[in-house]
Structure formats: structure tokens, C-alpha cells
């Protein structure tokens, strides 16, 4: 009997101890402080509302807790002259700022916009129809990871080789991993990293090549400018737009550390035009890739078409035109895009007079 009392007592003690602590203690390994972010080249969220910031100057990815309140109903965003409004709020003129990326927090449906000032400083603001608020990066919960510099690790002469990644061109989050594409200011090479989150020591870097030209005659490496991910025929793919060719597919499960993967060009968008932002949307039960272009209207490809076009992945592409796509004429000169929720996309568009507007479109209208 005494023994039973002892066990009951022990159990109560454990319960009491557990009750004094939160159930989840810092699941992401965050610390509180100022992350010391020097530039913001790219933004992305995971589904829990953790903001990932690609900082080219420190060659790091930061994960920041936003503490945004949950909000299931997205308010359609429409702000004319967003560049001027942001410039005013930053005490400068629109000529002095560049909007480098934007992303919607899927938890709060708030739009985050990254801004680079021409004097070299960066800021992130939250934008809605009525106000522009700063994202404070002081005393926040965060973690970070430096991008491995494989080449520099080999340098043993202490000459302090500069980091090979000079600019992070895009980041994304998929299946518990932060995906990062980078550009070097020296080499014409392709770096693509996949980094498990919460951050640990591990990050994988794959070397990506593609076939291009008729009959897959030429193979080449080149930096990725923007990317998204998609499921095609039940398989996950990286859909990448390169600096030289618009649309290349890579199977995600082949992008492993040290692997050398050949993708294939599935579409070209014509001369003098490149996609500058991409996202995947669903409408009418089908998934579509939509792309904002430098010199064209938004173009849209049904992933089913890509799947039908596919053939074996290792087979060279026949012809350079590739997959058929549809243009959405209302949306020319789209600079940025992101899903506002599962039915709507928020779009940043440059108007004919040079102004930059924010607007929202239903998936069905795209």
C-alpha cells in the first residue's frame, strides 16, 4: 500500500512539474534577439507562419517568428502606387527603393514586402489596404543558418576566399525544408540548396544542369532566377526558371547532396522574356503554374499539359517551344506574385505610367 502511495505521489509530482511548463518548448530552437539581417533578397513562409529571409550579404537564411494572429479570411488587397506609399513611409522617394520580394503569411494572410534601399539597407514591411507597418527585427525569436560554401571549405591558404553565393535569387519551403537558389557574381554556375528546418548542421547542395536546344543537343549549367515546386503525376518536382531559359523540371527526390542532376527544358517563353516570379495555384480541381514575366502577360501552364508532354525524364526535349501555355492579357509586367489564400493570388504589377500597384485576382480569373 505504501508503495502505491509512493507511485501516486510520484505521478502527481510529475503532473505538477509538467503543468508549470508549456507543452511545447521552443520547437524551432529559436533564440530571442536581433538577427542582424543585412539584406533581404527573398522571403518565404512555412505553413505555421515562420518567415524565412534570404540574406545575400551575410549568405544566410534567417527563420523569424512573426507572432501574427490566425486569420482564416483573407481580405483582398488593392493598393495603387504601392512603391510610392512604401517610399513615403520610409522617408524617401520611390526611385530610391526596389521591392525585392513579397510573401503572404498563410496563418494571418498578411502581406510581407521586402524593400532594398539604394543606399544598401533593407527593410521588411507589412502591407494592407490601409497601412504600412514595419516588421521589427529587434528582440524577435529567430534562428539562422549560414549557407555552406563548399568551395571555400577547400581553401586552406587563408586567403579568405569570398563566399561563392553572392545573391540569393529565391527561397521556398517544401516538406520541412528551406529551398534556396543562388547566383554568384563571378561564376556562371548553379547552386541549389535544400536545408532541413529546424536548422541543424545539415544542408544538401545539388549541382543542376539542363538539356537545351533541339533534340537535347546542348547541356549547360546556369543560375536559377526563380522557382516553385509542384506535384506532377504524383511526384514532386522543382520547377525552375533560369537566367537563360525559362522552365526546367527536376525531380525533387534526385536533388541530394553532391548529386549531379540533369533537368529538362519544358518551355521557352520567347525571346527577350523571362519569368521573374512563379507560383502554383489550383482551380477547377486542377493545378496550374502561373508566371509573371519581364516582357509578357502572366503565362499559365496546366501541370497536366506538362505531364502529358513529359515522356521519360531522361529523354531530351523535342523542339524548343515545349509545353503550351496561355497568356492572361490583363496582367502584363507582373513583378511579384503570391497566393493570398487557396482561391486568390495577390499580384504586384507595373503600370504603363511606371507606377507599381498591388491587386488581388481570384484563381478563376487567371
Amino acid at each position: 500500500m505504501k508503495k502505491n502511495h509512493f507511485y501516486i505521489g510520484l505521478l502527481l509530482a510529475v503532473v505538477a512539474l509538467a503543468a508549470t511548463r508549456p507543452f511545447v518548448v521552443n520547437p524551432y530552437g529559436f533564440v530571442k534577439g536581433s538577427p542582424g539581417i543585412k539584406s533581404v533578397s527573398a522571403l518565404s513562409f512555412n505553413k505555421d507562419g515562420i518567415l524565412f529571409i534570404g540574406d545575400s550579404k551575410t549568405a544566410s537564411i534567417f527563420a523569424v517568428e512573426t507572432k501574427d494572429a490566425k486569420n482564416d479570411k483573407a481580405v483582398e488587397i488593392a493598393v495603387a502606387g504601392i512603391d510610392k506609399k512604401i517610399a513615403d513611409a520610409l522617408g524617401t522617394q520611390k526611385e530610391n527603393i526596389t521591392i525585392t520580394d513579397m510573401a503572404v503569411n498563410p496563418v494571418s494572410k498578411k502581406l510581407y514586402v521586402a524593400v532594398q534601399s539604394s543606399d544598401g539597407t533593407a527593410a521588411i514591411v507589412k502591407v494592407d489596404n490601409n497601412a504600412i507597418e514595419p516588421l521589427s527585427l529587434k528582440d524577435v525569436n529567430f534562428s539562422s543558418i549560414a549557407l555552406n560554401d563548399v568551395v571555400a571549405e577547400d581553401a586552406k591558404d587563408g586567403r579568405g576566399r569570398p563566399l561563392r553565393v553572392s545573391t540569393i535569387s529565391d527561397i521556398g519551403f517544401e516538406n520541412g525544408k528551406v529551398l534556396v537558389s543562388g547566383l554568384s557574381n563571378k561564376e556562371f554556375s548553379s547552386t541549389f540548396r535544400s536545408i532541413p528546418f529546424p536548422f541543424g548542421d545539415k544542408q544538401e547542395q545539388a549541382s543542376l544542369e539542363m538539356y537545351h536546344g533541339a533534340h537535347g543537343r546542348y547541356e549547360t549549367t546556369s543560375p536559377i532566377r526563380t522557382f516553385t515546386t509542384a506535384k506532377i503525376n504524383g511526384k514532386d518536382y522543382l520547377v525552375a526558371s533560369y537566367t537563360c531559359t525559362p522552365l526546367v523540371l527536376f525531380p525533387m527526390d534526385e536533388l541530394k547532396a553532391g548529386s549531379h542532376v540533369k533537368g529538362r527544358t519544358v518551355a521557352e517563353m520567347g525571346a527577350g522574356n523571362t519569368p521573374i516570379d512563379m507560383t502554383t495555384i489550383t482551380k477547377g480541381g486542377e493545378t496550374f503554374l502561373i508566371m509573371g514575366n519581364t516582357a509578357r502577360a502572366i503565362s499559365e501552364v496546366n501541370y497536366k499539359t506538362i505531364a502529358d508532354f513529359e515522356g521519360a525524364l531522361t529523354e531530351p526535349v523535342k523542339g524548343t517551344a515545349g509545353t503550351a501555355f496561355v497568356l492572361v492579357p490583363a496582367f502584363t509586367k507582373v513583378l511579384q506574385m503570391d497566393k493570398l489564400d487557396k482561391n486568390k493570388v495577390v499580384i504586384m504589377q507595373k503600370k504603363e505610367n511606371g507606377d507599381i500597384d498591388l491587386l488581388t485576382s481570384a484563381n478563376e480569373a487567371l
Partner: protein
Amino acid sequence: MKPCKENFLTGNRPYTILYGLLFFSLILLVACRDVSKNTGITISWTADKPTAIHIPVRLIPEKKDSAIFLLATRVEGSQTNILGNYHVSDVVVFEPLIPFTRGNTYHVYYRDSLIATFNIPLGDSSNVRVVNVYPQKDTLPINLLKIYLQFSSPMRESVSAQYIQLTRNGTDTLKDVFLDLQPELWNENRTVLTVWLDPGRIKRELQPNQKLGNPLQEGSWYELLISKQWKNASGVPLQADFKYRFTVGGRDSLSPKPSEWRILSPKANSKAPLLIVLNESLDHFLLNESIQVANKDGTIIKGQFYTEKNDSQCRFIPTAPWLAGEYQLLIDASLEDLAGNNLNRPFDRDMKKTKTPSTERVHRRTFRIEE
């Protein structure tokens, strides 16, 4: 946004904060300049950027704790309050989210009444110039991939397309020659910008190449113009236009071959330079960091590298005198020529004609130092 809440006008603050802020303001005052029109507003500078202003308490009409919430700073002509933080010590400190812009005039309001105006001065206007453009040769390959622009001071970002122009044979200004990249490819202190000629137009059989053709044409001469309208990060324009003229020769589709480099080795017991003749101009910045000298065991020899003859030759001077014996050059495979061909693979490999690329990360050449 709300300013931080402190009772600055009643002096009812924790001493730690008070002393901290006094210390902070003392440090800042050292770097402050009174630039307002007799209002006493001073600007504090961090790394040559105007990162805060100090507003004397006497400018604030009401002496109450909530006064700080009624302050606003706006750029001249704007109705929007600038985002930032107001702190309090013996002055009110306003730190905008990004530094103030050089050349701008700002107004400080209290309850929408103007209480002060200040200007941010332009930076030092001396000697803002283009230091160099790479490559520096008179004749460049038709598939030239990149040009580096080196400036004397950090420049304004994201605006390069407005100030860089390429003309052909002295008449045509070329469109869509350079790749429009945002963010731009700057080095860390923003003094070197990498500009790419559109790779989609250089790669064979891509649509841009087929429809628009190669950006450069063999036999033509070109002039790269960097406009003096381009301002540096402090708002000061370049002193003068910069022009660089070159003619265009044939296509370079071959990887650099270290096995064909000529190595001229000095005698032992001297610090005479080792000369490496590369047979062609290579990428200036990659060349400076891609070659190392090691002894037979692989231990790196310390010394200084110099590139010369338009980056077609380099010179290595060891810190300690050479010893007789076998040495090796370690050459990073990522070293590229002017057309983006690296040691392992050409920029654009024709699978029908060229062999499978090497995957070696480091290429080696051995040489001897004789007695």
C-alpha cells in the same frame, strides 16, 4: 507604429535606462551635426549613414509623458509618417526604419504642427569614379559573358540599367543586351558590379539566340558607356562619363587548359617570381582567387599573386625563398575564361562534339625549382 513608452518629461524612469540612454546619447553627440535651421535638431551617423535625429525637448510644446506619441517625421511634401522608433533621453531620438536619404528635406510635426525642419546633406563629392572595367582587352570574344565595373565608392543599387549603355560601331544603341537581374550582383561593399550579357542570347539554339541573335557581332566595334548621372550611395554622381571601347572577335567555345600553360620557374634560394603564362585572358576576379602553389606534399606555399597582361599571365612571389624540389599548382575548376567556359566544361556543351566533362574540383600542374 507606436513609440516606446517612457515618461521622459517627468523624469520618472528606471536609472538603468536613464544612464544607458545618456551614455548612448553622449556617444551619438560626438558624431552629430546640427543641420537644422536654428532648431537644434542634430543628425547622428552610423557608418556614414544618417541613422537618427535628435530633437531637443524644448521644441516639443507640451511637457507631458504622452508627448512622444504625438511626434511625426515626414519627408517634405509627404503626408505619411516615417516608420521608426522614438526614444527618449535628454533629447528625443528618432531612428527611422532605414537611414534618411541624402539631399532630402524632412519636417518634424507635433500634433500635426510643424516644429522643425532639417536637411540631410549630400556626401563628399570628390573622386567618385569608375576605377576599372574588366575585361580590359581591346578584342573580346563574340560570346563574352560578363563585364565587371569597379567603382571608387559604394554605388546606388538596383539602378544600373539606367546608366549602362552599349553602342555598336558608334551609332546603334543596343537593347536587351544585358541581363536584367534584380537584385543586382554587387560585391559586399557595393564597389564591384557584375553585368551579364544575356546568356539566353549566347547559348546556341535557345529561342532568344535564334530570334534576337548573339548580343555581340564579330568584326564590329563597341563602346560601353557608364553615365556620370549614376550616383553613389551618398547621392554624389560620378565625376565623369566612363567609356570603354573594344572590338569583337571569334567564338571561344573551349575550356581553359592548364596543361598548356607555360610555367617559368625561378631558381632555388630566391624569392624571384614564378610566372604562369595562361595563353588567353581569364576572368579577372576568379583568376585572383583560383590558383594556389603547393609543395609536393600539398602544403600551401604562402605568397602573393599578381595578374598581368590583361589577365593572361600571373606572377607568384613566395613569402619565403623557394627550396629546390617539386611543386604543384592547384587550380580551382571553377576558373572561367571571358566566355564563361570553366576548366571542367564549356559554357554550352555540344554533346555530339565534346567529351564528357571532368568532375575534378581541383586541377593540378607540377613544376620543379632547381638549385
